């Protein structure tokens, strides 16, 4: 699969999260998170399951309603009750763990339905844009297929193309490779890497430490609803300072080594 890195120019936006809180009933899963992502920056969120990293990501485009704090996305105050959420979400692409492609639509329709219905693009224009993004993810010939005719890796690549077809300024990835067969993980990661190199602002929840180390500008380690440690990717992963980070990375990087 050959992908031209700078095939599509990206108009990147930043994110600024301050004092973000989120509870489910009495269970507080985010306990005041501060996080700043600069335009064009790639930040990976890592941490054990239940640490709140997916919830944090889902708060950024308000799929989860925060209980406190503010989220600024590219100048939008997402937590302001008066803000037009649909307008903000047009600029924030999201890729889900379970792909969530629309099974009743073809691959091309998956990528054009929102541009046509939401951005009111002309069908032919939307198809042209969608096709260029499908080519970018190496699936230019797959426009007429249905999602259930594709492998998991191909489906996730379509999901990325679908999000890109809205021409977002920020991309959120919620464990994009966790539901994939091991041999298809690479094709998705390499597309994400290309996207990062093209200058897209990316916030990525992932367990792929090699990817985080290589692609991310910064890594944020979360545990128990707080940011425990953050910094330059190679330093957080290569030389963690906090005991909880050290413990987590030891388990992830060397699964056979367990202190019992």
């Amino acid at each position, binding site marked *: 699969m050959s992908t031209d890195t700078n095939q599509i120019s990206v108009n990147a936006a930043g994110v600024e999260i301050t004092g973000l809180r989120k509870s489910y009933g009495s269970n507080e899963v985010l306990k005041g998170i501060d996080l700043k992502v600069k335009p064009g920056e790639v930040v990976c969120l890592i941490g054990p399951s239940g640490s709140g990293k997916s919830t944090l990501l889902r708060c950024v*485009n308000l*799929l989860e309603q925060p209980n406190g704090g503010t989220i600024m996305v590219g100048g939008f105050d997402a937590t302001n009750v008066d803000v037009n959420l*649909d*307008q903000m*979400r*047009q600029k*924030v*692409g*999201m890729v*889900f763990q*379970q792909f*969530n*492609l*629309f*099974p*009743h639509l073809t691959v091309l329709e998956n990528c054009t*339905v*929102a541009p046509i*219905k*939401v*951005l009111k693009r002309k069908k032919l224009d939307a198809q042209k844009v969608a096709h260029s993004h499908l080519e970018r993810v190496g699936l230019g010939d797959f426009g007429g297929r*249905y999602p*259930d005719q594709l492998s998991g890796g191909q489906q996730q690549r379509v*999901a990325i193309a*679908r*999000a890109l077809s*809205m021409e977002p300024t920020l991309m959120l990835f919620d464990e994009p490779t966790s539901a994939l067969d091991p041999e298809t993980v690479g094709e998705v990661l390499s597309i994400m890497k290309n996207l990062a190199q093209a200058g897209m602002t990316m916030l990525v929840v992932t367990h792929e430490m090699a990817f985080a180390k290589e692609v991310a500008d910064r890594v944020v380690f979360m545990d128990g609803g707080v940011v425990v440690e953050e910094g330059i990717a190679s330093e957080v992963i290569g030389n963690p300072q906090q005991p909880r980070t050290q413990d987590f990375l030891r388990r992830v990087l060397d699964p056979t080594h367990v202190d019992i």
Partner: protein
Amino acid sequence: MAMTTSQRARTSKTIQIVVFVGIIIALIAIIDWDKAAYAFFSFDKLGPMFPDMILVGLKNTIFYTIIAFAFGLALGLILALLKTASFAPYRWFATAFIEFFRGIPAILVLLAFGFGLPQAFGTTWPQPVNVMFALGLVSSAYIAETLRAGLQAVPKGQTEAARSLGMPAWRAMVTIVIPQAFKIVLPPMTNEIILLTKDTSLAFILGAAMAQYEMTKFGRDGISQLDAGLTPLVVAGLFYLVITIPLSLVARKFESRAAKTKR
């Protein structure tokens, strides 16, 4: 003497055959076949029923079914959406409506529309209109429940993906969720049409002009006007099967296709 399993199975089969043949023989002996044949199979005397039975009766039965179903589907979709709404009073209203019209006999609704509406509101439209309204209303309650199940069977991730692309809630519903829900409910929905087809037979109790007769009315008139016993009803029944059996086959085809692919 102990029997092996296969011996026992053979014995039980023999007994079943003996009982079956015995019942047939008893029926043949008891029943007066000339009378029975007159009552059920006097097809030769049905000449006057045709071609109106088909040109008027079959046509009207199908027409009433289609209009009532279209009305029931539209109302049922609204009720299903109300029932899944986040605003509680909407849900209460939908639940009350559905429980009411599912819980009372269709014939009561039909009578209320046929005789009650003209009395209460002075409506003067023809009775078949009342029939289609009443049956549509009743079927909307069943359709609503079927659709609600279908809407809820569409994974939540579908709505999330649609919303994350900037679609407003109604757009996500119309473009993403409802089309998938309809595919899920196609087989049970075909069932609803079959039930509705049969329920149009209740129309005769409201009375109507000749051009508005459906098949059961023709069958009933046939009993009193023709010297053919119950045969006109047998014929009406056969014509219902002409409509419902193909529908069943279609439903089964949908089901097997749905089993093969998730699409």
